[in-house]
């Protein structure tokens, strides 16, 4: 009898603990970003951009009268922490999540969001297979690596290089991009004279560089991240090794100039979605102005802006379909067609991939500015 009473009490407590959704209660959107760790500067800007946009949405009356609340979780840029961050967001009751940056990090969180029925819009995870898993509520505002590999290879060819050295850093993103690019080179008559990885935890890449020098390429294609390419650019200059480097979108970060120094960085090329300064939409310009006045700086990369885009499409979906992940997913895949995001028009295909060409070629000028080619 007593145990029955206890169970009844317990049941009552559980029932009371389940939140009842009321109209004036804010709707929660999660932001999973690398606020600490190697990619901290990317992650912190992602959060700042989404916070600015959320404040704007709330200032103009919220989503159909309901305010939006941002819940931030730090994934530390590592898959292990990402799983914890995803659990945290899911239990806090978000209906959709913006993020994250690294592909391997996103990969570790996908299933957790899927099982919880939460929409995830990745912002910098370009690895191809992420959308090939049949996860219905997964989207991304960044393009895929095969798109990037195509543009990278096309530019190598267009610039007249014929002997390439391919270098990656063994992360799933960089290796995937290197392999994609390698395949395209094979079919387009470009000779590969060197193919190897570096260890991103190292600081000294001079041995790799001397090996590359011995292989005598016209150009080095590096598919890794900006901290390492900064060191490579510097050490290449120190070795008096005069060969151009062309990189992928993970090197699109203005911290590269500071890390490598203007002299060593000048002439470095990379393919990337358009840089902030070249985003000519009205909304992007407004965002830059607000960001500048609030943080006295510009977001250091395009990835933060793609996080903003992810947030904005979620808001649009919520406005049109209500705060229900299933209906929002349906709406995003079928009805989102001519939406003008920060980085240009946004639409998704049935896999959740962004439709349309996004990549551009950039070159670092002598005074350390990323110039659209």
């Amino acid at each position, binding site marked *: 009898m007593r145990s029955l009473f206890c169970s009844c009490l317990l049941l009552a407590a559980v029932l009371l603990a389940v939140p009842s959704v009321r109209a004036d209660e804010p709707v929660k959107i999660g932001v999973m970003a690398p606020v600490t760790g190697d990619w901290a500067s990317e992650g912190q800007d992602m959060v700042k951009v989404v916070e600015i946009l959320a404040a704007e949405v709330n200032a103009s009356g919220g989503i159909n009268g309901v305010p939006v609340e941002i819940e931030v979780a730090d994934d530390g840029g590592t898959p292990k922490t990402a799983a914890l961050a995803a659990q945290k967001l899911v239990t806090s009751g978000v209906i959709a999540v913006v993020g994250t940056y690294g592909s391997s990090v996103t990969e570790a969180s996908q299933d957790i969001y899927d099982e919880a029925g939460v929409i995830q819009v990745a912002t910098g995870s370009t690895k191809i297979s992420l959308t090939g898993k049949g996860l219905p509520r997964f989207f991304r505002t960044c393009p895929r690596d095969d798109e990037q590999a195509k543009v990278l290879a096309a530019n190598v060819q267009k610039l007249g290089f014929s002997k390439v050295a391919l270098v990656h850093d063994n992360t799933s993103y960089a290796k995937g991009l290197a392999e994609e690019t390698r395949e395209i080179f094979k079919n387009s008559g470009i000779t590969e004279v060197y193919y*190897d990885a570096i260890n991103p935890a190292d600081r000294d890449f001079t041995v790799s560089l001397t090996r590359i020098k011995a292989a005598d390429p016209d150009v080095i294609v590096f598919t890794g991240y900006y*901290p390492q390419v900064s060191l490579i650019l510097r050490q290449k200059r120190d070795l008096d090794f005069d060969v151009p480097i062309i990189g992928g979108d993970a090197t699109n970060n203005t911290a590269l100039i500071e890390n490598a120094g203007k002299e060593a960085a000048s002439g470095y090329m990379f393919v990337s979605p358009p840089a902030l300064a070249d985003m000519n939409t009205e909304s992007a310009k407004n965002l830059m102005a607000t960001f500048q006045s609030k943080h006295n700086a510009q977001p250091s990369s395009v990835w933060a802006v793609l996080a903003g885009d992810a947030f904005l499409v979620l808001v649009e979906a919520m406005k049109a379909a209500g705060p229900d992940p299933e209906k929002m997913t349906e709406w995003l895949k079928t009805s989102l067609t001519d939406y003008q995001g920060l980085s240009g028009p946004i639409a998704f295909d049935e896999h959740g991939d962004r439709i349309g060409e996004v990549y551009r070629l950039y070159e670092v000028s002598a005074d350390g500015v990323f110039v659209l080619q």
Partner: protein
Amino acid sequence: MPDFEFFLQQLSNGLTRGSIYALIALGYTMVYGVMKLINFAHGELFALGAYLGYTLLVVFGLGGSLGPPLAIGLSIIMVVGLVSLAGYLLERVAYRPLRSSDRLAAVVSALGASIFLQNAIMLQWGAQYRAFGADLLPNVVFHIGGFNLPLVRVLVFVAAVAVMAALHVFVHRTRLGLAIRAAAIDQGAAKLMGVDVQKVIILVFIIGPALGGLAGLLVGVYYGQINFNMGQLYGLKAFTAAIVGGIGNITGAMVGGLLLGLLEALGEGYISVIWKDAITFLVLILILVFRPTGLLKERVAEKL
């Protein structure tokens, strides 16, 4: 590139890296020699040196206002001073209270100090990579045939070797050095002979961190990029170097460090970049299999 020039290039790569490993390894080996304790927080003192150098040269802008040679000279003095102070405090707070307790307690305390320092650095300076700025030192490159030797690399190597030579003279030619050696052989007997062992321990905790801090500053100036967990990898490599050289043996730490750097560079240059660490550690394991006490065996048998 002709084979011989390629070899020279790897040799210079290896010696530069190795001299930094050796500097850090000295801190591990000196503390172990006197206290039989692995100071796991040593890698973090190294990182602290790099960050203090960053604060002085970049945040306070000494590099711009004083000119490179004077600024770097001054920051070496200040970094070495501050990191040895940190080393002294570390001994006072984390190790001295546990001196008479079990050795395991001191090891746990060392690990705790390491985690504390690493996170303190992250909270103070942030989790991002910090750049030293490329224009700190003029970019002078010597050309010898097809072999290029940047001046910075020569300076790093010369600085490390000079410091190690000075330490060698200090330990083997001065009375304080004699006291260190005596305390390393037998603390009790040294006490009876009138050696102030407490002073020796403090001295070791000043010299070791000073060398580690200097190494941190050199890494910052040479590579131009630092991050808060850099002490982990460098600490592990230097610790390995100290073991291979024969832990507790000062010359052994220098030899072990240079050997590790050379093995890395040659393994990377001639075999494979990805397999570098596997190759290096395989060779080191083989060395330890055939010489379990390290290359330069400790002269006192019962110590090991």
